[in-house]
């Protein structure tokens, strides 16, 4: 078997965490298979950054080109497929990120190598690759085998693996490869980054958060949660569907495409706990979840759980808190 490729992901001068997570998992697989792990990195003036990767990999391939300054899946696809054709790795790992999902499926189809997306685990048994991935918003895990091929491509979920620097560092060799890009990429062009306008609330600064999800069902029900949050002295946050429906502004969104929070208390109300949301709140000190589905993934990340109708529990809880405040006053 040939080696393993890990595609380094970076944006605005920063190597992203998923890179180290994949390198850590990649090393584990490479050791088991007795093959070499190679980190590959594309960009403009990124050779210096390759040093950080060399601690995790025995070899770092760097391709520098002004056309690779910002991520462009068309450019990346050309460069990565030429490296894969040349080096023939058994496995290529790409992050299941905004960049990876743009690149990997098309790369796999063009090379005619099978792809498994959003993997949370992967194991080789002989030359056969088995992956674990989630379905139905994280409520079900699937073990799947990939059609046998000489080379496989996977996208790896963020935070599925914990990054751990090899001790001692591997100090891999950094090798510069010529860019195969001869012409400008014209079909697709990066224009700029945009940040949404700053909102009025900074949920990352709050000590207590009440996160509301799809279970609230209707904007008309929002005051029930707002009044509860007020009684508790907590700030209102939410999961993605609530922002998508326009019920709360995006500055209140917790999760991979929103904010990462770490309050002393996070009460998740009507949130099922898709991993994108969990990524943003799992490190809160105390997590209490209220959901009517006993198998909602959110309960696997919570300290306390209540399986019941939020429209019954929340008003009761608000009353109890107000009673207590009345006693104190």
């Amino acid at each position, binding site marked *: 078997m040939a080696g393993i490729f890990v595609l380094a992901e970076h*944006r605005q001068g920063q190597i*992203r965490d998923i890179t180290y997570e994949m390198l850590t998992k990649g090393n584990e697989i490479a050791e088991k298979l007795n093959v070499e792990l190679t980190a590959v990195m594309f960009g403009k003036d990124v050779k210096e950054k390759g040093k950080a990767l060399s601690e995790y990999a025995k070899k770092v391939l760097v391709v520098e080109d002004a056309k690779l300054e910002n991520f462009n899946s068309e450019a990346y696809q050309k460069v990565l497929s030429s490296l894969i054709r040349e080096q023939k790795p058994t496995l290529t790992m790409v992050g299941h990120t*905004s*960049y990876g*999902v*743009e690149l990997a*499926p*098309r790369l796999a*189809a*063009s090379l005619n190598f099978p*792809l*498994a*997306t*959003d993997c949370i685990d992967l194991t080789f048994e002989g030359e056969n690759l*088995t992956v674990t*991935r*989630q379905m139905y*918003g994280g*409520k*079900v*895990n*699937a*073990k*799947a085998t*990939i059609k046998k091929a000489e080379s496989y491509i996977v996208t790896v979920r963020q935070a599925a693996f914990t990054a751990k620097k090899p001790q001692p560092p591997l100090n891999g060799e950094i090798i510069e490869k010529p860019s195969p890009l001869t012409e400008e990429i*014209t*079909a697709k*062009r990066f*224009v700029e*980054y*945009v*940040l*949404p306008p700053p909102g009025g609330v900074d949920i990352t600064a709050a000590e*207590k958060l009440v996160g509301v999800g799809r279970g609230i069902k209707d904007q008309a029900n929002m005051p029930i949660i707002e009044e509860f949050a007020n009684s*508790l002295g907590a700030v209102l946050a939410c999961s993605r569907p609530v*922002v998508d429906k*326009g019920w709360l502004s995006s500055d209140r*969104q917790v999760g991979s*495409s*929103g904010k990462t929070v770490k309050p002393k*208390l996070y009460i998740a109300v009507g949130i*099922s706990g898709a991993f994108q949301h969990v990524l943003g709140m799992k490190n809160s000190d*105390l*997590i*209490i979840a209220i959901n009517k*589905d006993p*198998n909602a993934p959110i309960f*696997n*990340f919570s*300290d*306390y*759980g*209540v399986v019941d*109708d939020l429209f*019954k*529990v929340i*008003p*009761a809880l608000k009353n*109890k*808190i107000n009673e207590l405040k009345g006693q104190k006053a």
Partner: protein
Amino acid sequence: MFKIWEDKQKLYENGLFIPLFNLEMRNTLDIIVCVKHVPETAEAELKIDASGKTIEKAGLVFDINEWDDYALEEAVRIKEKLGGTVTAITVGAEHSDSTLRKCLARGADKAIRLTDPKFEGSDGYAIAKILHSVIKNLHYDLILTGFQAGDDSYSMVGPILAEMLRIPHATLVKKIELGVGTARVNRELEGGLEEVVEIKLPALFAVQTGINEPRYVSIMGIRKAMQKEIKVMNLAETGLSEADVGEAGSWLKIEKLYIPPVEKQAEFLKGSPDEVAAKIVEILKSRGLI
């Protein structure tokens, strides 16, 4: 170009002009939207069925995939603004018709359902091949898909289809601005950041939720949609072979489904809402949180 079109349109309305559907005259957009009929599982309790390879579907409500709902709405809005056609296409069993009817009621002009027992067990790659076999023969300026499906969440059909059609694509699209021969789209990156990308048309965009607010369907619309034809095609009509589709034509084969193991299970608080509320208050008090 617009001027000529308006003039001909007027002649047409007066019964004096029969439009020639020639490319030169076109200043409207033909849009294809790929949709999927999926079970709604966000708030349902799921069980694995006896085969261990799929979930128990009985009792689940099926509807248009959430991401596709936004893609459809975006297509209809573009049509309303610029004129043109919207064609909804799906790979699925006969019950997918209710999703296609919804598309028609919301403003799609045509609907195509690709149905064959041999399509069973297809992964995202095989689905992309099936869609490609039909879409390659249609005229389109824009193809819209959902970024992922709520059931298997492969996030691969759109980009693979774009590769097969040799057109550029963008995923996680949160905004589309159409220009002459090109579009500017906002892609959602992590942590609230977006990037603007300029892409040549025809192109495929895989839409992220929240790009718009999907409209409700009027009763009139649904009634009208019931009369519209849904074109049905099977494996033979797609020109593909059995080896291209289903499990044989897929990259991935599901061996086993299971409910994720629990790493840190919550301690469940039981009792009436009042009793549970009292318990929570005690916990918060003990931690100095109230």
